[in-house]
């Protein structure tokens, strides 16, 4: 267990990070991600209110669907990345633990009359991820297996109401299950009793999301990083790209037209040593051209993998760079993300 943002997080279980990682890629893994911030946005103007703070076509989100969005500041920097689901009578938000307090205060300050944010500190969040997740969950909630990718439904498991979305942070097919905290332990035990399922900690979640090329807020995303630099412009949404009516839209639009100062890339270092956040990225002449923001050892590919930001001339696939590890340059090359193909249901 390690402390993080006021929570004690399970980093690994007795199986260890590599076994838990493989469990998720080959079968199904259960993660406790209850530290994530959850809230409901009530009122007919909820989507319009959120669109004043975040990009993405949130007003166009149909009931039963979820979308990835970014809260941006006036400079176009990312305040947080979040999931927004339309539950019909309300929007349901899942934000990062470290940003939850500031996100919710920021949203509340922008609400118009008739719209209300309800925080859910009393709700737990479990993630069931892996190629056998649907098979395991269907035994308990048959309708869950019929959810499309990024679909959301209020279902019941053993008479317990569970808000289930087909989404996750591993690159695998899977589900996130939001339940009342008091129902979380029995639900977790029931899921773990399925033959396909074993527990996995936040250590495996990090190596899985890195293989999937997914950015982690606080490492690969922050308030000084724009969606253009991060390669997340797909999240802006077509309608919002016509209106340019979200915070920082001018900067983001300018970067789309004229190019951003840096870009997020995948990096494959030579050798076996993991290269982690904070390591300088050098060009062939030894000039600093960027910084590693996340890195680990990939259990699936059995090599070190990293992501970071480099100046655009160095962002093309196969560009040869060096990573300054403990005073020694380690050769590396730029590779497309993800490191391991996504296997979402479509």
């Amino acid at each position: 267990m390690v402390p993080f943002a006021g929570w004690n997080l399970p980093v690994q279980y007795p199986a260890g990070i590599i076994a838990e990682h493989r469990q998720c890629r080959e079968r199904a893994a259960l993660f406790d991600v209850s530290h994530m911030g959850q809230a409901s946005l009530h009122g007919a103007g909820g989507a319009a209110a959120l669109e004043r703070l975040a990009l993405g076509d949130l007003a166009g989100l149909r009931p039963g669907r979820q979308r990835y969005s970014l809260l941006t500041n006036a400079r176009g920097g990312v305040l947080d990345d979040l999931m927004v689901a339309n539950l019909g009578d309300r929007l349901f938000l899942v934000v990062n633990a470290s940003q939850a307090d500031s996100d919710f205060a920021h949203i509340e300050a922008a609400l118009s009359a008739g719209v209300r944010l309800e925080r859910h500190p009393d709700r737990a969040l479990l993630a069931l991820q892996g190629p056998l997740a649907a098979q395991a969950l269907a035994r308990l909630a048959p309708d869950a297996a019929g959810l499309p990718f990024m679909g959301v439904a209020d279902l019941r498991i053993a008479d317990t109401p569970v808000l289930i979305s087909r989404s996750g942070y591993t690159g695998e097919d899977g589900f996130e299950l939001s339940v009342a905290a008091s129902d979380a332990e029995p639900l977790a035990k029931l899921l773990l009793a399925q033959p396909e399922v074993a527990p996995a900690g936040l250590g495996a979640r990090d190596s899985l999301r890195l293989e999937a090329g997914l950015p982690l807020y606080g490492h690969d995303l922050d308030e000084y990083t724009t969606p253009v630099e991060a390669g997340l412009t797909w999240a802006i949404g077509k309608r919002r790209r016509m209106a340019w009516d979200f915070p920082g839209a001018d900067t983001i639009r300018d970067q789309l037209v004229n190019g951003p100062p840096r870009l997020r890339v995948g990096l494959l270092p030579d050798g076996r040593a993991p290269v982690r956040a904070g390591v300088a990225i050098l060009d062939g002449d030894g000039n600093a051209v960027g910084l590693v923001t996340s890195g680990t050892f990939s259990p699936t590919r059995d090599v070190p993998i990293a992501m970071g930001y480099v100046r655009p001339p160095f962002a093309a696939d196969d560009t040869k760079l060096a990573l300054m590890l403990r005073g020694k340059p380690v050769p590396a090359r730029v590779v497309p993300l993800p490191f391991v193909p996504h296997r979402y249901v479509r």
Partner: protein
Amino acid sequence: MSQIRYTRDHEWVRLDAGVATIGITDHAQAALGDIVFVDLPEPGREVAAGEECAVVESVKAASDIFSPLAGKITESNAALADDPALVNRDPAGEGWFFRLEPADPAAFDALLDEAAYAALIAEGA
């Protein structure tokens, strides 16, 4: 007859015929988790006691290894380059890190004995 001592940084030191072999304890490997890379010192290097001289990397983090004794490195465990998980499987045996000739053999006796190290673990250090 070899003797074993320990450090507060969870290393073990075994002295055989004037040469010290150094590795990390079972407690340390369990705390680190799956080890994926070990960076070891070059033979011939002179190290001071407490000097950073190796790095052990698990999936989640890198940890520095400090030389428990001053001396000259005589050998590093080449087997760890191909199979760093040896440290997890056999931390006190095949998973050793490096060997050195201590500058002051008496410094070995000042390290923790088995009972003192067991007490340190029991305290949760």
